[in-house]
């Protein structure tokens, strides 16, 4: 009696997972990284800064899956434990850039007048500067370290979000239901928060997940250049920069963090594309 619906539901879930392959595979990859970020020390076979000079610069083996660095630290352990830094930088930076970008986008798209024009102009100018250059200069000004890194990424990622939100808000602003809300005396700020923002949520969520992938790349690039989290913290970009110095003797040193970066970015991108297919049936199939 009861088994029927459960089987039907399971079959439906299985079909849903198959139909949203991007979404599910992206989410699966991210879950693995999330586990690594939370339980890094428990998963890693060695400590992040545990030195063993006797086994320095060893290639991948059963004892050290991804090899060791010149101080004999286990690279697999360093990458696993370092997940926390890269992931939290990406997530925090994108959260910040979304808050700021949504705020600016709402102003530029909904308000009419000099304030909107000013916001629009600033966003336009900011969009002309290449993302990486902007991030590097902000990081240089703020100084190396976690705060500087997050600020650099979030500020340089704000203009694209603001632009996308502005476009969507301008579209929604002209909808009949906004006019209808005005006829029953809804205040402008309430219209903005209750009627405009929820209808713009889809594009914000999609853009945020795609941006998170880019944020990982920017964060590791800044780390690679020495502008990010400082050693001995095992941040991936920093690991990559350190590995570069030994590229000729120990090329496996850049493989470990490089693979991790690629996989994490892939996870975010799959999630973003999957979300877009799922939430916005007009684009893609």
């Amino acid at each position: 009696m009861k088994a029927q619906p459960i089987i039907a539901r399971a079959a439906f879930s299985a079909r849903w997972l198959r139909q949203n392959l991007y979404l599910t595979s992206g989410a699966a990859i991210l879950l693995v990284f999330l586990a690594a970020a939370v339980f890094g020390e428990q998963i890693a076979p060695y400590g992040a800064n545990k030195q063993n000079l006797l086994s320095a610069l060893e290639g991948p083996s059963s004892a050290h899956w991804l090899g060791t660095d010149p101080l004999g630290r286990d690279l697999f352990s360093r990458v696993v434990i370092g997940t926390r830094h890269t992931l939290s930088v990406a997530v925090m930076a994108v959260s910040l850039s979304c808050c700021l970008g949504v705020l600016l986008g709402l102003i530029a798209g909904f308000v009419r007048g000099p304030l909107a024009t000013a916001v629009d102009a600033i966003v336009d100018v900011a969009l002309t500067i290449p993302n990486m250059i902007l991030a590097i200069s902000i990081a240089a000004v703020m100084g190396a370290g976690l705060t500087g890194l997050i600020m650099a990424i979030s500020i340089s990622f704000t203009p694209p979000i603001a632009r996308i939100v502005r476009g969507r808000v301008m579209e929604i602003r002209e909808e009949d239901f906004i006019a209808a809300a005005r006829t029953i005396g809804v205040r402008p700020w309430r219209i903005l928060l209750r009627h405009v923002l929820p209808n713009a949520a889809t594009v914000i969520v999609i853009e945020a997940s795609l941006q998170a992938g880019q944020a990982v790349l920017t964060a590791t690039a800044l780390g690679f250049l020495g502008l990010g989290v400082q050693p001995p913290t095992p941040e991936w970009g920093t690991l990559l920069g350190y590995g570069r110095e030994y590229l000729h003797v120990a090329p496996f040193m850049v493989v470990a963090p490089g693979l991790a970066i690629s996989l994490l970015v892939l996870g975010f991108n799959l999630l973003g594309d999957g979300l877009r297919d799922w939430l916005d049936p007009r684009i893609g199939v």
Partner: protein
Amino acid sequence: MTFSETDSPLLEVRDLAVRFDMLRRTIHAVNGLSFKVRAGETFAIVGESGCGKSVTALALLKLLAMPPARISRGSVLFEGQDLMQLPESKLRQLRGPAISYVFQEPMSSLNPSMKIGRQIAEACTLHYGMNRDEALARARELMEMVQLPDAEERLSAYPHQLSGGMRQRTMIAIALACSPRLLVADEPTTALDVTIQAQILDLLSDLQSKTGTGMILITHDLAVVAEYADRMMVMYAGCKVEEGPVDEILDQPRHPYTLGLLQAVPRLGSSLQEGPRRSLEEIKGVVPILDAPSVGCPFAPRCSLAIDICRREMPRPASYGNDHHAACFRGEQVGASD
């Protein structure tokens, strides 16, 4: 229903003019419009697309986007208070409890990401300071009032889960949430199936007779006017050309434009009942572009009765007894040649 001139009107519009300032020109959308709506009556505004019906309705509570719109002169007296002189905050308090609107497009007039119940409840929380539960209870009442089936279930439905007729009932529920003294129904049935049209209009007139609300019914469907309205106003190019009791105007129009509209209505089975088949009359020409103030009667270029004076001078409304006015120099001749 009959009214004497001494009844103080619910709404009195005096010499209202609305302009749209475009980049290179100014559109004269509404030109010196005056009319009155009394409490409890249904007042129809009739005219072709683009003649300024909806602009007039939205101008009452300054709901037009300004700029580009601009109310260049005139006053709108609602219960004796001039709405055009009120600040935005005061107007906002009147939107809903004083005048509320039902629009043409029920498909796009509801917020797609908000549940029906909360959309209806929103007006109650705004104007009566109700908390969430009280407002939802009121929403349930209103849904029963507009005969939405399964009110309890529909409270948590999203607009896309409702049919066009049900969405229009929802719009009416929202409009009635604050018990408005005047309801503006802007072509409420144009987007609906013919069978649903009658249901919605019956519902509106039923609710109106229960609540004593005045109603402005904007339409281009003269059959609807004949069935549901007490008095009517015919608009052309942003001007009032004729106003009066519905029966009288439909029986004996005094403006050639009104006559043209009447002759453009197709009649089912007319060939059987009235002998030889009458071909549908059209009004020749098109509505003028309103980028300059009109010299003379705006309808003169399309009018078969037009004489010299029609092109030189704006006709003043002439009275044809019992509150019936028409702005035409040749009102007496209208329909005489038939």
